[in-house]
């Protein structure tokens, strides 16, 4: 029985429990509902909570623990030789074990007998391999006896777990139901209990956000530490060559220098900001200081649309239209512009982040007190002089915050650069040449076949951590500036 089926049955039982709880409470008070502390509905909820909640908690805990526990049991069968080996070897053997164990339940009893015999050495491993091959378990070589033993144990542990889980869940549900049913009486504070449980549920929901952050940090950090066992942090952070050649499992070959990627990321983001900051800022100034309400009502949504277009659309546009266009323009004026140049990705990305600059700047310019404007007009300044000499200096911290937020968007942006920027890591100052970025390399290291023990894959997590730290720092700083600025005028 799969976990989803169990869940569905539990929910069904819960609905049943609701009606039974209601009925029971009416029965208990003998139809005199005003003698009940809580209305019958709450008794229904009370019984639902006692029936379903412990069982679902058990189900969830089981789901988390099942894989590690069964894997641990199976691993003990691999023998000391493998267990004392490196993590990479262990993981490699375990992946073979898992693929065999996935196939074992599909075998007929006779075929399974062959595998059992191979495990104890009565038939050759290649017989077992043939049998497994018939059920599309493809093995690279004949399985060792200890591997077969581990796979057998894994499969039987899984089967046991699958047998016990529904029994345990339904037993817990039944116990909870029985206990709750017996406790229903007129004085039961069912509403208070229900509300406390609901309130805890709300609290748990609000911690999901925190758990996500913790999950991001831990998972990325864990794999990064793993990566640093292959490549020293110093070589990663200060290396100037990016060339992660293909290597066999467990060996670090090639060079993992972050600097060319970081440079490419910053270069493209700088071009993007060169487009987005002037356009976004002037658009914000025009909308908040000059435009009438009609123009504003039209221009603001138009700018917001730019932020709403999925980045893959920008990427495709840059790849198929804008890159070739720039290249042709360059050809006509005698410049050699690569179709995947820094300019292509940078300009398109710049357009994408215009709304991030403009809408926040708009808010901030609007927040500058009217008295400052009037004071300046009173001294005879024109509108543009007021903006340049009074409003912008007053709004500057906020605008800097907006620009930093936009920069963090640009640094973390993926799809535009994956499609429109280069692939080769390139330390160049020439904006007409292609460079590559951190995000491009995360994608290229993690698509295709994955082997989780090679530095070639793990480096993606180190790059991800770098990206996370940079964007987080920019965001926190930007929000700090914006908040501090707001306090100034409030």
């Amino acid at each position, binding site marked *: 029985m799969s976990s989803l089926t169990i869940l569905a049955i539990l929910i069904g039982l819960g609905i049943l429990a609701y009606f039974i709880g209601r009925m029971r409470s009416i029965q208990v008070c003998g139809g005199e509902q005003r003698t009940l502390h809580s209305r019958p509905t709450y008794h229904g909820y009370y019984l639902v909570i006692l029936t379903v909640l412990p069982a679902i908690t058990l189900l969830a805990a089981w789901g988390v623990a099942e894989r590690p526990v069964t894997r641990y049991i199976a691993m003990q069968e691999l023998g000391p030789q493998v267990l004392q080996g490196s993590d990479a070897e262990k993981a490699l053997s375990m992946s073979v074990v898992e693929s065999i164990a996935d196939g074992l339940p599909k075998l007929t009893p006779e075929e399974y007998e062959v595998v059992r015999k191979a495990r104890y050495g009565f038939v050759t491993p290649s017989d077992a391999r043939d049998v497994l091959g018939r059920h599309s378990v493809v093995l690279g070589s004949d399985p060792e006896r200890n591997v077969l033993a581990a796979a057998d144990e894994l499969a039987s542990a899984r089967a046991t777990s699958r047998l016990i889980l529904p029994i345990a869940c339904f037993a817990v549900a039944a116990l909870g139901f029985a206990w709750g049913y017996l406790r229903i009486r007129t004085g039961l504070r069912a509403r208070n209990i229900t509300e406390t449980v609901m309130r805890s549920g709300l609290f748990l929901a609000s911690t999901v956000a925190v758990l996500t952050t913790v999950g991001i940090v831990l998972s990325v950090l864990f794999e990064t530490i793993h990566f640093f066992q292959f490549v020293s942090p110093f070589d990663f952070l200060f290396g100037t060559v990016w060339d992660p050649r293909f290597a066999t499992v467990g060996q670090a070959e090639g060079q993992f220098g972050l600097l060319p990627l970081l440079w490419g990321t910053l270069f493209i983001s700088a071009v993007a900001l060169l487009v987005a900051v002037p356009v976004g800022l002037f658009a914000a100034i025009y909308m908040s200081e000059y435009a009438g309400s009609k123009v504003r009502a039209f221009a603001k949504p138009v700018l917001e649309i730019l932020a709403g*277009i999925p980045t*893959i659309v*920008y990427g495709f546009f840059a790849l198929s239209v804008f890159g070739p266009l720039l290249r042709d323009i360059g050809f006509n004026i005698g410049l050699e512009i690569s179709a995947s140049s820094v300019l292509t990705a940078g300009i398109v990305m710049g357009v994408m982040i215009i709304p991030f600059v403009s809408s926040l700047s708009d808010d901030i310019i609007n927040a500058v007190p009217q008295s400052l404007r009037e004071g300046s007009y009173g001294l005879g300044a024109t509108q543009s002089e007021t903006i340049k000499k009074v409003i912008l200096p007053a709004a500057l911290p906020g605008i800097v915050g907006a620009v930093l937020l936009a920069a963090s968007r640009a640094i973390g942006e993926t799809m535009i650069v994956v499609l429109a920027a280069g692939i080769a890591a390139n330390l160049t100052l020439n904006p007409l040449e292609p460079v590559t970025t951190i995000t491009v390399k995360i994608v290229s290291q*993690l698509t295709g076949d994955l082997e989780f023990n090679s530095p070639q894959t793990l480096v993606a997590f180190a790059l991800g951590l770098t990206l996370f730290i940079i964007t987080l720092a920019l965001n926190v700083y930007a929000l700090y500036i914006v908040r501090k600025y707001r306090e100034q005028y409030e």
Partner: protein
Amino acid sequence: MSDQTASLASFTGEDAQKKLRKRHRAERRFRAYGVAAILFALAFLVFLFGSIFSQGWSAFLQTSIKLPVTFSQDIINPSGNPDAEDEIFRANYVKLAREALYKELGVDADNRKERRAANDLLSRGVDVQLRDMVLRDPSIIGTTEDVWLLASDNADALLKGSIDRETPSDRRAVSDQQISWIDQLVDKGEMKKRFNTGLFLNGASSSPETAGLGVALIGSFFMMLTVVLLAVPLGVCAALYLEEYAPKGKISDTIEVNINNLAAVPSIVFGLLGLAVFINFFGLPRSASLVGGLVLTLMTLPTIIITTRAAIRSVPPSIREAALGVGASKMQLIGHHVLPLSLPGIMTGTIIGLVQALGETAPLLMIGMVAFVVEYPTTPLDPATGLPVQIYMWASSAERGFVERTAGATMVLLAFLIVMNSLAVYLRNKFERKW
């Protein structure tokens, strides 16, 4: 007196006038920069949409050839046993289509070169098309029927004008003879562009004319379903806790800062999280739309929480106090008044979150949604792709036919987003209450 005239002169004199004109010119210039900035954004938007539509509209049409195909028993089912499914499944359907084409064009069956040129007019997908017809209705074996067969990528490109007839024939993908055949068929009305249902129904394919968005649409649907089922309850509950219960203190501050930061974490980092936690730790299958949905849930959660909180905050205190005054508990106040009143706001926020999730690509690349999936996924655990991922995969392929498909798929994606956004605007305008 003289001082006064001197100072007046400094305002009205030649120099002063000049300076004033200069200042006014600066004023107009400054204003023009603002207009230019908005026009730049607008022009870029028009250019973007225009170029995608001009490339993509033709993807909704596909060239087909009408041929009288003889479903010959000798080729489909030589053993004569109608239960020999394997035989029927593996029969040489391409031959059926090609023979019909030779007859139609009057191709000399002994001339190999001519035969090959004629073969190139038909798509490689015709065998599946004919096979499905036979499997659906085996009684057509032995009869002759008019069938609209898919034309090849090159024939399609010629009809749509993306292959130029004026190019010298040695640099053109379609030969002179093929062009004359195509013209002949078009004149007879037996070759024309028809609405491309395959674009919405087919799965992955290596030839552009048979590639479609079917798998991607189902995958995206499963992902959106997961997001709605998980992110909305979680987000609304979290928002309710933060607005209604959270004591002002360290814990609620931490949660709040966290949510704001999560909203700004690059999407690709969520993909790394999904890979490390859902696939490596929990052992969920790669390429499954469930994993995609879970990752997108975590990504949209901040959006939903933030919009829901705004909606809850706009419920006026008078209603709260009235409810509490007649003896409602806090939970009853929330369930009976706060939630129903903020529902329109929550729905708008949900749609905005879904729009964001539907267009998101980067995290899906991390969890193996870049997959060549031919079969429709039937559960969220089956391998699938998503709409934006399909665009990415087509955009990275080299064939010309795929450029058109990519733009077409982009139009489909944009259409979904526009519909959903309009729905959000409609809901907001219809149900928004000013208290």
